[in-house]
């Protein structure tokens, strides 16, 4: 089992949950530890509630785990809701002046801080937060110096007096805990490694920069807005043209206009915005202009739950735009993959001149993960496919934008090059770009053009590797997931092993092309197959069945807005292997 330590900090909006979160994340990452963080917003009771979990450890931490080791409730509500998540050996640090402790599990240490005695709360409104951080680090056996340097950095834009004030309050908490509280049994590990801490949205944006994206546009929509923020913040330095547009119809068409002019263009949205992009996606396909659209899924339909995660947009992606057309759809497996996938997707859509969809979700987009900087290749290969960017010296045949070729790919010239003038269009056209409805609606030309475009499908499939089984062969159970569930399924497999059940994992990254034959080849050898996904209807299971006729032995689904935790999967697998059910819908505990 992986060694890890999880901190939960909760409070009402405005109580400052984010800052302690940032401080903990920095302290952990400076110690060379991995971390995974997820911020859950809860929209019950007065004015909302935020609960941030940061899990850290020397091994890769792929999800927020099953339980807390430390709880810092900033209000009574958090104490009441989350105290039970602490197991033996855990601790709860709270403001003794304003919060009544609840009944904790045996072996949980309750650590009341006399906040008004330790700090001047008339001057420092968030003194309780800073005191708690100081206390926590003392109990974790971390020297005060590491906290001091992080505080210096955290408040570097503030006055010296503010920095000093925070350091002295943190020191008071630290010293008080040293004298009054029992340290954790295991001091926090430390390594020589250094990781970057990224949100999925930042990773998607940075992946775009690495891919040579020169044009990014978006309409703000949770949970994808972080991509726009990153792009806007770095636009000038990174020489990327970034525009906020009036709506998503404008967004995709603007990206297509820029892409036709010759740049790599990208945009991001969530399900509702993507619905408006459907028309433009068809334009990209018909006019054969490559564009990359990111969909950060949130719980739908309609406005749905803007702050909650789901893998519910798959069929929208599969059915987006009318008519048949080549495209690529991929779901990143984790936050590091958000970075890696973007240049891959651009190379693919540039080569095959079609739209590409990156199917991310709130869990990754707004989550945080430590990523080894060595894995972030800012110089990935750029393959723009058959792109004509200059007139050249030699004479050439009269240019046909939609030349019929064996691969289905026609060399694409950017506008402005004499000798390569051409028309692109949303109407069906002939090789010259002349609209076929402008002469006779020519059945032979329509057929030839349709077949030309659809020939790209086999090229796209050949360019993407089929998925591989992870874990031991001949396992008792094979868990199939797609996209962001990679980490939690991986940990569930390890936990199952501890309980004597061998499990392996088939994680799908490329949804189109699917490589259905390769998937069935793997799954038909499996003893027991269960598809795990964060939606109601089993969207991937239905897709796999429609493409391959494969039906799994069981399904684990979750559609309450929260991500899977490892024990959800472990318990569901056990009940399914015991023959109790074929469909498990784990209940999400109060941890949100």
């Amino acid at each position, binding site marked *: 089992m992986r060694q890890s330590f999880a901190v939960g900090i909760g409070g009402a909006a405005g109580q400052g949950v984010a800052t302690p979160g940032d401080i903990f994340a920095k302290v952990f990452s400076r110690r060379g530890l991995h971390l995974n963080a997820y911020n859950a917003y809860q929209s019950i009771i007065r004015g909302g509630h935020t609960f941030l979990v940061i899990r850290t450890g020397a091994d890769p931490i792929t999800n927020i785990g099953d339980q807390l080791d430390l709880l810092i409730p900033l209000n009574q509500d958090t104490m009441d809701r989350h105290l039970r998540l602490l197991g033996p050996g855990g601790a709860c640090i709270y403001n003794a002046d304003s919060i009544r402790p609840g009944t904790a599990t045996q072996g949980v240490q309750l650590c009341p801080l006399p906040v008004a005695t330790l700090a001047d709360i008339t001057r420092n409104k968030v003194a309780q937060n800073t005191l708690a951080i100081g206390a926590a680090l003392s109990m974790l056996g971390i020297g005060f110096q590491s906290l001091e340097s992080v505080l210096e950095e955290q408040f570097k834009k503030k006055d010296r007096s503010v920095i000093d004030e925070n350091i002295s309050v943190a020191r008071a908490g630290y010293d008080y805990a040293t004298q009054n509280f029992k340290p954790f049994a295991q001091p926090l590990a430390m390594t020589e490694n250094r990781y970057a801490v990224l949100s999925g949205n930042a990773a998607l944006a940075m992946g775009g920069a690495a891919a*040579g994206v020169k044009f990014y546009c978006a309409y703000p929509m949770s949970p994808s807005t972080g991509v726009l923020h990153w792009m806007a913040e770095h636009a000038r330095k990174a020489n990327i043209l970034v525009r906020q547009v009036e709506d998503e119809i*404008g967004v995709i068409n603007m990206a297509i*206009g*820029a892409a036709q002019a010759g740049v790599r263009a990208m945009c991001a949205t969530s399900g509702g915005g993507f619905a408006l992009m459907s028309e433009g996606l068809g*334009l990209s396909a018909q006019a054969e202009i490559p564009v990359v659209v990111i969909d950060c899924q949130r719980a739908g339909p309609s406005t749905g739950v803007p702050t909650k995660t789901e893998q519910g947009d798959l069929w929208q992606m599969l059915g987006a735009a009318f008519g048949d057309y080549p495209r690529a759809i991929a779901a990143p497996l984790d936050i590091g993959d958000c970075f890696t996938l973007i240049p891959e997707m651009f190379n693919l859509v540039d080569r095959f001149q079609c739209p590409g969809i990156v199917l991310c979700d709130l869990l990754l987009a707004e989550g945080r993960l430590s990523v080894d900087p060595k894995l972030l290749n800012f110089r990935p290969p*750029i393959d723009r496919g058959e792109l004509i960017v200059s007139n050249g010296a030699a004479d050439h045949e009269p240019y046909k934008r939609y030349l019929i070729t064996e691969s289905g790919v026609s060399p694409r010239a950017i*506008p402005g090059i004499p000798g390569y003038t051409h*028309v692109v269009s949303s109407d069906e056209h002939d090789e010259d770009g002349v609209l076929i409805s402008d002469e006779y609606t020519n059945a032979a030309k329509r057929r030839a053009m349709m077949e030309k475009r659809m020939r790209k499908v086999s090229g796209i499939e050949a360019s993407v590797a089929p998925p591989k089984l992870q874990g031991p062969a001949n396992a008792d159970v094979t868990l199939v997931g797609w996209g962001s569930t990679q980490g939690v399924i991986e940990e569930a497999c390890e936990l199952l092993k501890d309980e004597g059940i061998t499990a392996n994992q088939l994680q799908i990254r490329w949804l189109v092309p699917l490589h259905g034959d390769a998937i069935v080849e793997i799954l038909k050898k499996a003893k027991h197959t269960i598809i795990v996904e964060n939606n109601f209807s089993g969207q991937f299971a239905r897709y796999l069945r429609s493409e391959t006729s494969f039906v799994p032995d069981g399904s684990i689904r979750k559609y309450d807005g929260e991500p899977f935790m490892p024990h959800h999967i472990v318990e569901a697998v056990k009940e399914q292997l015991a023959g109790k059910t074929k469909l498990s819908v784990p209940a999400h505990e109060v941890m949100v």
Partner: protein
Amino acid sequence: MATTLEAPKTPAPKTNRLGLQAVDYRGAKTTLCAGCGHNAISERIIDAMYEMGVKPERVLKLSGIGCSSKSPTYFLGRAHGFNSVHGRMPSVATGALLANSSMLGIGVSGDGDTASIGLGQFAHLMRRNLPLIYIIEDNGVYGLTKGQFSATADVGSKLKTGVINELPAINTCAMAVDLGATFVGRSFSGDKKQLLSMLKAAIAHNGTVMLDVISPCVTFNDHEGSTKSYKYVQEHEDSIGEVGFVPFFDDISVDYDPGTTYDVQMHDGSHLKLRKLHEGYDPTNRIGAVKALMEAEERGEILTGVFYIDAKRPSFIDSLNLAPEPLATLPQDRVRPPRRVLDEIMQAHL
């Protein structure tokens, strides 16, 4: 005695300042109805581009969907083209011209494409002041779907079927002035001289040019009772001022009386000469422009001419302070942010 007959000399073909002939600006044969106003507009665009000496390969023709949006095929066959989706040309044009501002963009739309399905896009395009000539070929009906009213049809206008339009027309010119377009005018496809001068001035302008060109639909909206018929427009046209244009490369100087003519010096050094027909009309005053448009509407008259011009406001491209080198033509080794910038970005995440 044999006499040798000299072959008759063919006069050298007329060329423009680039040495190109008018034929170099033609497009494919039109498939629109004979007599369609749109064909006349295509001809004026050919004339204007030829006379201004625009290099056809530098032009990007953009359109949406509809009869109007088919027409870019019928002019400038040597230019690049993008037939986009219904009502979406403004955003396609914005993306294309931001990525490559060295192109001259000309967008052709219709009244359905602009004032109904594309109204949101139109409004936001006007706000940007993107350097783009935006032409509405305005006939008040949907032609390709057989003659339904569009949102620029006037109250009381009658369809062939006898249906009367009850909703007020969207005044695209007043909207454009209000929203920030820097060159707004209306013309009539049947008025060769005025339309040609306006198009030439449009080519010289650095910013969004919005031209609403009334262009009668001979098949569905040219009958008695229509307010967009040739006859009705000829009878109700009221010009706000005669439009004269002197391109920067012409040194012919004609004296104009400043009391009767408004002289606007344009971005490229050309001059737009607006002879005042409405007393006291000032084409640099937005409020006056909207007022004149509304008053004409009240009178049931079709106001034409250049209503508003601001030759000084920076275009979208200028205000974004883009590097002169278009992003679209950056060599591949320079499309990524420099190493130093990436290191700086990574440092912030460590």
